[in-house]
């Protein structure tokens, strides 16, 4: 037995080394740096000052608010639309693989490239979206250059770009459902609605739980799409700033890594808490 255990350490060694070096050490270092001030090359101990600073910085609160709103709105809406689309493709559409491929395409395209295209679609003066809206006699807001619209624009873009990955995973899950369930349900004369809510949805719960976790974590880390949509800025007047944008800006541009790391620690705790809550919730749903 004992020799076995020693061997196990050896097998684990590569992973342990890499995880320690590239995951655990950075987390500890970030935690340590959040109590230091000055630039990277000359850090000094400063206690809780960085935390005091971020909690009194209106930009930090705006970043947190935007990030939370983005996660809370874009993830459930995106997931609901994904389930709907996946179900339609799976249940009602011929040439499934063609649609599946089409829907997956955004996932393999660079976010920056898509963002630039969306910047033109959303443009207030000559954008395609506003052209359509005006033709339908609907209000055509300035999606990009009006600070009040920034978050809405980011959320729409976020929902759209989350569809690709979600749909493909959900299609896989739908195919894994035993067709016999449906055959038996048909024999007893179940309606389409019954079949969806009583067979499909319960079978999808583990997949949805997985997607929810991935999407929420991804939503908290949103950066690239904002960068691309607003041409390198966090929206006009930094109105679309997010937690990661705040961290990047403080670390790289302003040159106060301590402040950036304090924000990182706060964001880390929020994600940890959100993930914990969500796992509890999904466990409850799974039990029912």
């Amino acid at each position, binding site marked *: 037995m004992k020799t076995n255990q020693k061997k196990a350490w050896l097998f684990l060694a590569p992973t342990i080394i890499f995880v320690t070096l590239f995951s655990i050490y950075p987390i500890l270092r970030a935690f340590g740096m959040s109590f230091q001030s000055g630039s990277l090359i000359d850090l000094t101990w400063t206690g809780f000052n960085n935390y005091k600073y971020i909690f009194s910085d209106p930009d930090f609160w705006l970043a947190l608010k935007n990030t939370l709103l983005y996660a809370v709105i874009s993830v459930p809406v995106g997931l609901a639309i994904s389930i709907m689309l996946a179900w339609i493709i799976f249940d009602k559409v011929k040439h499934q693989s063609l649609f599946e491929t089409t829907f997956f395409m955004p996932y393999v395209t660079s976010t920056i490239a898509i963002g630039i295209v969306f910047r033109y679609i959303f443009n207030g003066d000559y954008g395609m979206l506003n052209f359509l809206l005006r033709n339908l006699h609907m209000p055509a807001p300035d999606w990009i*250059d009006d600070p009040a619209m920034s978050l809405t624009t980011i959320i729409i873009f976020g929902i759209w770009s989350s569809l690709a990955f979600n749909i493909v995973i959900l299609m896989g899950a739908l195919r894994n459902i035993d067709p016999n369930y449906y055959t038996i349900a048909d024999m007893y004369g179940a309606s389409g609605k019954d079949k969806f809510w009583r067979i499909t949805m319960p079978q999808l719960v583990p997949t949805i739980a997985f997607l929810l976790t991935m999407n929420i974590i991804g939503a908290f880390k949103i950066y690239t799409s904002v960068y691309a949509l607003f041409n390198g800025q966090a929206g006009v007047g930094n109105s679309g700033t997010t937690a990661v944008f705040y961290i990047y800006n403080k670390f*790289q541009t302003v040159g106060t890594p301590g402040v950036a790391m304090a924000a990182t620690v706060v964001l880390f705790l929020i994600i940890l808490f959100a993930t914990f809550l969500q796992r509890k919730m999904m466990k409850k749903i799974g039990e029912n």
Partner: protein
Amino acid sequence: MKLSKKLATAFAVCLALAGTAACSNGEKSSSSSSSSSAKITKVKKNTNIVFWHGMTGVQQDTLKELTKEFEKDNPKIKVKLENQGQYSDLQAKINSTLQSPNNLPTITQAYPDWLHTAAKNKMLVDMTPYINSKEVGWGSSEASDIKTALLDGAKIEGTQYGIPFNKSIETLTYNADLFKKYGIKKAPTTMEELKKDAQTIYEKSNHKVVGAGFDSLSNYYTLGMKNEGVNFSSKIDFAGSTSKKVINYYADGIKAGYFRVAGSEHYLSGPFANQKVAMFIGTSAGEGFVKQGVGDKFTYDVAPRPGKYTMSQGTDIYMFSHASAEQKSAAFMYIKFLVSKASQLKWANATGYIPVNNAAADSAEYKDNKKIKLPAKLEDAMTNLYSVPVVKNAGAAYGQLNPIMQNILAAAQKKQNVNNAINSGKSKFDAAWKQ
């Protein structure tokens, strides 16, 4: 057993590698600090130097041409140009590389405030001995013929760490055809005239053409305050009466429609070329882009920025102290070549940057350049230069002005009262100074 042995060996090798990496790092960084005080040597053997820059388009092409010329004259020196993207990307790259000095380039473009901490930590080379050297430099700073104001602007806390290279000022670019059409005789010289002319254009064009706009809102505010006699510092009361006067000048124009902002496009040269705005205030280095955009559609012209002061902006070249003595000499020879009369002439004529060299700026070849409009107006445009002081957090506060002003002007655009936006701007502005 065999497998476990192999794994153990691999593990040991891993550890050893990690160890050596750490060791070599330590050794090199200690040697680099000692070499910073080495004597200036001639370049005798083949030397490679690396230059980080943020130049694009015609600017980058011209830089490449100049570098080729230099390498032809100095066959022993190879200059590797490395584009790091926009200025903000370049700044971020320098910031994150400062902690592993061996990965820094030999020289880089930078604003002095980016390198404040690097200078404090003795990671930059003091250029004075090189300037005064008769072998690689000019013998003295007067002999360099670089404009004194620009040379002073490249100092960090009194030490000459940088040599000015690509310098620009803010100028007014206007649509001369539209001016003629709406009866405006000459370009505005004061902010009052700017407002009046902008109103005239907006009214007479039946609200089709916006009068004017400013590319950089940070510059707008900083110079607006300077014109009111207030220097850029942490003492500025953003919600004070002078500040409000400066802000409202622009906000009122936006409410009434005769002013506009660049928004997420960052520059007004696009709307200007499409005749959506009749004039704008922006960097002189943008003239290449204006010329390209305007084409034959109409005649544009350049005038000094209205108001007393204009912004002196653009980067200098700084050298890092980790390089070898030969590399430093080679790099300085390259810098000397870049700011020479001939190079600056070529550079300024192609890009719209201003020549840093007196002889180039005064030469007929520059002044009579008909391809771009700036040279003829340069002398008048440069009478009162201002730049953001190099003190802690000044750069961050100056950068923060842009989003703050955007928020205020966005409120103005919706015809809302701007006081709320000014008050929240004040707390952001003050927070930027305090980090």
